[in-house]
């Protein structure tokens, strides 16, 4: 029998402890997914409401599409920015797996770059033209959304392929030029649908949360938004259960069994189910009444907790997949303590700086509103 080829681990020691890289990876990846869901889920929401808002009887849809149009480029900017950090940390821990799978689907993997640019410029174009509601704005947005859907598909292929070293050699021999997809893996399709549906669900929770804030300025519009978002959130979350079950059946049995056998994975899985069900209940209950209640905010918070738990679960399953090939605990470590401390200080400083700028913006908006108010 031929042994499964895996590129060797880098001879240089890891420049920091595994737990630190893991923690950073989970944090930045969760944020990346939140931003990605805002860009993709937001794109889909915007497109739907833009098309719906072209009829005069749906002024709120039109208004929502115009408001979201201004945010989409920023969502995508942060998807990319946070994605870079996730890519950096995942390379440290799993570089030899990720590089190989990336090479195997290399041509498509590289295509991600121009595709992101197309989607990004499309979002900008839409943000400039949406309000006028004429011309090809809707088409451009639809193209951007489709492109994002393609990018997500390429990512799912790569992220599943890196977990399956057993497929690599045959795939390389079949198409050494990088035109491969990992469709032989039955989990790719359910995983992809799970992610897309999840993006719509998560952004719906964000919208429900935003709708609560909008109610302060315009109660009717805010209520419309909260209730509509809550319904979509509930529907998508229900569908997400079915897709999740499909996904669990599609991944190899011994990997799925980890959820039962490994106490940590089991606990994370159980908690994520509890948190998502409670998020769904809270958002639905909170939004149904004539005056939506703050339960919606708590439901939104629980949705974010679910996201973190799901990302952690994904990580634990990745470890289970790669267990035969790598043991992170066995990697040599030589921590660059001084630089790590410097990074952490700058990280906090960077967040504070961004927070400070947002505070400046909020203060500016407040001054402007009070200056415009009738005396």
């Amino acid at each position, binding site marked *: 029998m031929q042994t499964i080829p*895996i590129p060797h681990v880098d001879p240089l020691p890891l420049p920091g402890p595994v737990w630190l890289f893991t923690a950073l990876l989970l944090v930045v990846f969760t944020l990346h997914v939140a931003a990605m869901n805002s860009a993709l889920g937001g794109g889909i929401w915007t497109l739907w409401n833009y098309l719906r808002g072209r009829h005069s009887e749906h002024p709120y849809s039109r208004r929502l599409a115009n408001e979201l149009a201004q945010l989409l480029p920023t969502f995508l900017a942060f998807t990319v920015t946070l994605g870079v950090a996730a890519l950096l940390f995942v390379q440290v821990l799993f570089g030899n797996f990720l*590089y190989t799978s990336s090479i195997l689907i290399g041509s498509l993997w590289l295509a991600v770059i121009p595709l992101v640019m197309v989607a990004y410029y499309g979002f900008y174009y839409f943000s400039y033209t949406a309000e006028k509601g004429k011309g090809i704005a809707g088409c451009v947005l639809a193209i951007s959304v489709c492109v994002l859907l393609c990018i997500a598909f390429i990512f799912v292929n790569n992220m599943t392929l890196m977990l399956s070293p057993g497929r*690599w050699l045959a795939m390389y021999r079949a198409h050494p030029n990088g035109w491969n997809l990992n469709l032989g893996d039955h989990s790719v399709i359910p995983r992809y649908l799970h992610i897309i549906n999840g993006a719509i669900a998560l952004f719906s929770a964000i919208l429900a949360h935003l709708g609560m804030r909008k109610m302060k300025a315009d109660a009717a519009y805010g209520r419309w938004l909260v209730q509509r978002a809550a319904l979509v959130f509930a529907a998508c979350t229900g569908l997400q259960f079915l897709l999740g079950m499909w996904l669990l059946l599609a991944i190899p049995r011994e990997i799925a069994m980890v959820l039962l056998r490994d106490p940590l994975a089991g606990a994370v899985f159980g908690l994520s189910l509890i948190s998502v069900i409670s998020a769904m209940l809270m958002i639905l209950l909170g939004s149904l009444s004539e005056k939506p209640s703050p339960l919606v905010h708590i439901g939104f918070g629980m949705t974010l907790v679910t996201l973190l738990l799901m990302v952690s679960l994904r990580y634990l399953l990745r470890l289970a997949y790669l267990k035969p090939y790598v043991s992170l605990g066995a990697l040599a470590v030589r921590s660059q303590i001084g630089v790590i401390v410097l990074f952490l200080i700058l*990280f906090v400083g960077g967040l504070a700086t961004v927070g400070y700028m947002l505070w400046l913006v909020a203060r500016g908006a407040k001054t402007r509103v009070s200056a415009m108010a009738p005396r």
Partner: protein
Amino acid sequence: MLIALVAVLHVFVSHFAVGGGFFLVVTESLARRQNDAVLLDYCKRHSKFFALLTLVFGAISGVGIWFTIGLVSPEATSSLIHTFVWAWAIEWVFFFVEIAAAIIYAKSWDSLSSRDHQIVGWIYFVAAWMSLFVINGILTFMLTPGRWIETQNFWDGMFNPTFLPSLVARTAVSVILAGIFGYITLPRNEGREKVSRWAAMWMMAGAMVLPLSLWWYFSRIPLFSQLYLNGVLIGVRHAVRGGVGFTLMALVIALVCGVWKPRWMRPPVVALLVVCGLGMIGAGEYLREFVRKPWVINQVIYANDIRAAQVEALQAKGVSHTANFLLTGDTAGLAYGENLFQLQCGSCHAASGYRGMRHRVDGWDAAFAADILQHIHMLRGTMPPYAGDEQDRKALGQYLASLNPAWQFNVTDANRLEIGEKVFGARCGHCHTVNGNFRPLRGAFEKETPSQVQEIFPALGAMSSNMPEFNAPDDQAQALAFYISHEANLPISHTAAPTEMPTGSNHSQLLRPAEPRQEVR
């Protein structure tokens, strides 16, 4: 080729992202101090253009470089990541702040007070420059790892010998580009002259610092890189001339159309200016990459992603015993040779196309190709040593020879010289010239007749361990001998080569690039 283009465009835009941010915030403060509404309006328009270009193209193409290096040089990327992950993490923090600041700056002209808006602008510039600061450390490390080789200490790698000169040079380039891009949103009527002269001033300021910093940089790079830059290789010479030419042209345009006659600064002239800027960056990046050859990380990893420390084992055991991904089980045939080509040469060469091998190996037979692979690192000083055993070399040689049909000549008196020159190009020209400075043969063959020259051929392989065996068919050998004898006996003034070659580069100096390799082993 596409990858190189994306990389150059990224460098172009990302340097503008640093300099342009500085330009915007300084211009804004000038406009506000002078209460100049036209200039302020220019800043607003420019910031929108700036955000669209840097946030989208600049940022995404940067990610593109990440994707690309992981595909082309996973070993080197992994090595850089293991050494500098925290540097990249720090750079990412600055990048994150930079993106947030750029979005806010471009969007909040009307909503922020003038003071707050300028604060955001300064935050943007500091974050952008700091990300340049960090990346500059990693980039310069690849050519001059300095004391890191012994200590493997992060700070030694980061603040390596060329860190400072390169940082100054890159900052100067950023300032020049800020001026160049400043013309893109030039006001059509009112304020045109003021903005035009202002942008030209930026270009001049950057251009004054640039030559000094490059000279400083040049003095700190390894000897082999200095030799490349001194003009040993034609490609490098073109790039040096191109870089200097584009920069001078940009400055002339700035002086004439920017300062003297601002109304001449029309879109075609601005486009030309942008092309000059791109040419300047393209030449600079090409040179920076090229003078590092045959390394990707000097003294650690070769350009074909093979570690210097692995070469000896690969030569002893052969690739088939160590490689994970082979397309074929037959480790002697043509398919294996092609596979080896992809593994070991594919980072820089394709069969045809970019740095294509087809025309480079035209006229090689399998045995000659296998033999020359053994001496591949001696060719021009830009190739890494061949990392494989004899069987690997034979298989790869077979593949290289298969790229072209074997040469068949009908040698006559009329075409003998021409065919001889062709054979010389294929068999000798990769390492020698007759009358040039590049390992010249004139000394050995001056006053020799063709038949005397041909008598030496069978002994070539035994003459030096660096020479391949001579095995060309007899008619080619005759033509080659005729050519060498003819050229070596030309009066020296008839030969163009010495004027092409710079003074001071001779055989022994050319061999120096090989030295560090031997030290590592």
